[in-house]
């Protein structure tokens, strides 16, 4: 009986694999895995592109404030995870950010600082909180989160810069169309999650 149990236990142990929070880039871990994370998770990508397009539609000073808020909230989110706090609902918050930012980019009314400031802060925190890596050690976790934060910030900044430099009529229209696509995708998935 003991032998059978031992065989069973051995079989169970051999069949197990490591628990993984985010298996988006197998074989790539640490800082570089973190860098890839926002680019490979569709919801993160939607939110970052939508937020970047909207921030880029703001004037120079508010744009800098919004980018600063986004960076600060990313850092705060990283600190929360490294401090071993777990937060649920970050994935839904990311979709809300994508929907609102995409809609605002489609409408092209950048003067809503009362909306864009808190949204930038929520976006940064939610992206960081939804990027919990599979790493076990504190150092590896921090490196992966740092990579995700750097990639997320660069993505938003690049999209904002692109929006600033795209001044021709057709380019502005393309940004608005992209915003409407992002909002539509995010709204549909949010509805799907809330309904099921």
């Amino acid at each position, binding site marked *: *009986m003991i032998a*059978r*149990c031992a*065989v*069973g236990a051995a*079989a*169970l142990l051999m*069949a*197990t*694999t*490591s*628990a*993984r*929070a*985010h*298996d*988006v880039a197998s074989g790539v871990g640490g800082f570089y895995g973190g860098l890839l994370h926002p680019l*490979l*998770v*569709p*919801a993160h990508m*939607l939110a970052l592109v939508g937020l970047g397009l909207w921030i880029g539609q703001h004037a120079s000073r508010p744009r800098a404030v919004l980018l600063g808020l986004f960076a600060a909230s990313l850092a705060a989110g990283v600190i929360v995870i490294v401090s071993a706090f777990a937060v649920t609902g970050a994935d839904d918050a990311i*979709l809300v950010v994508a929907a609102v930012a995409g*809609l605002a980019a*489609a409408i092209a009314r950048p003067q809503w600082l009362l909306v864009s400031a808190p949204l930038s802060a929520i976006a940064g925190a939610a992206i960081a909180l939804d990027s919990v890596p599979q790493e076990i050690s504190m150092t590896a976790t921090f490196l992966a989160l740092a990579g995700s934060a750097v990639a997320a910030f660069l993505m938003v900044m690049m999209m904002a810069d692109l929006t600033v430099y795209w001044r021709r009529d057709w380019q502005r*229209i393309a940004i*608005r*169309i992209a915003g*409407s*696509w*992002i*909002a*539509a*995708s*995010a*709204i*549909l*998935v949010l*509805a*799907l*999650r809330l*309904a*099921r």
Partner: protein
Amino acid sequence: MNARLAACLVTFVLAASPAAAHTGSMAGGFLGGVAHPVFGPDHVVAMVAVGLWGAFLGAPAIWLLPVVFPLVMAFGGVLGIVGVPIPAVETGIAGSAVVLGLMVALKVRPPLWLAGVLVGAFAIFHGHAHGAELPAGADAVAYSAGFVIATGALHLCGIAFGLLARWPAGRLAVQTAGGAIALAGIVFLIGPR
């Protein structure tokens, strides 16, 4: 008995796969979403007709319709997801091809708001059909992004072809395309579903 139980347990465990937060394949979900409107001929002709009509109407309709359509389509999609019934969805989709095709073929130029309302009304039918078929799961984001982008790309195809209307021969080609779309819509209406 215990040995059988152990064998069953081992079989179950061997068949298991690791739980992961983001299980969806970016490429698979996205391509599945792209394929949904592209491989539905009734969706394709209606989307191309929206672009053709926008190009025919000129600015600002040429860019307003592609911005408005996905947003209204998302509203229709939400109705489909939460289970709000819309009668005769497939008839509405086929009807959109007939009406929009005729608008192009007959060179109808209504006020912008009326064109927007008409296209928006049809967008609800298309969105409802997409929403009802949206797959649950982690790759729903990639899937929905795929079909929204594919829908937009079909609009852009229509707009690109519709820009030929600047020339007399091109105008005839665009009107002919509108007529062909209306005919295709009639076939979808009377054909088996």
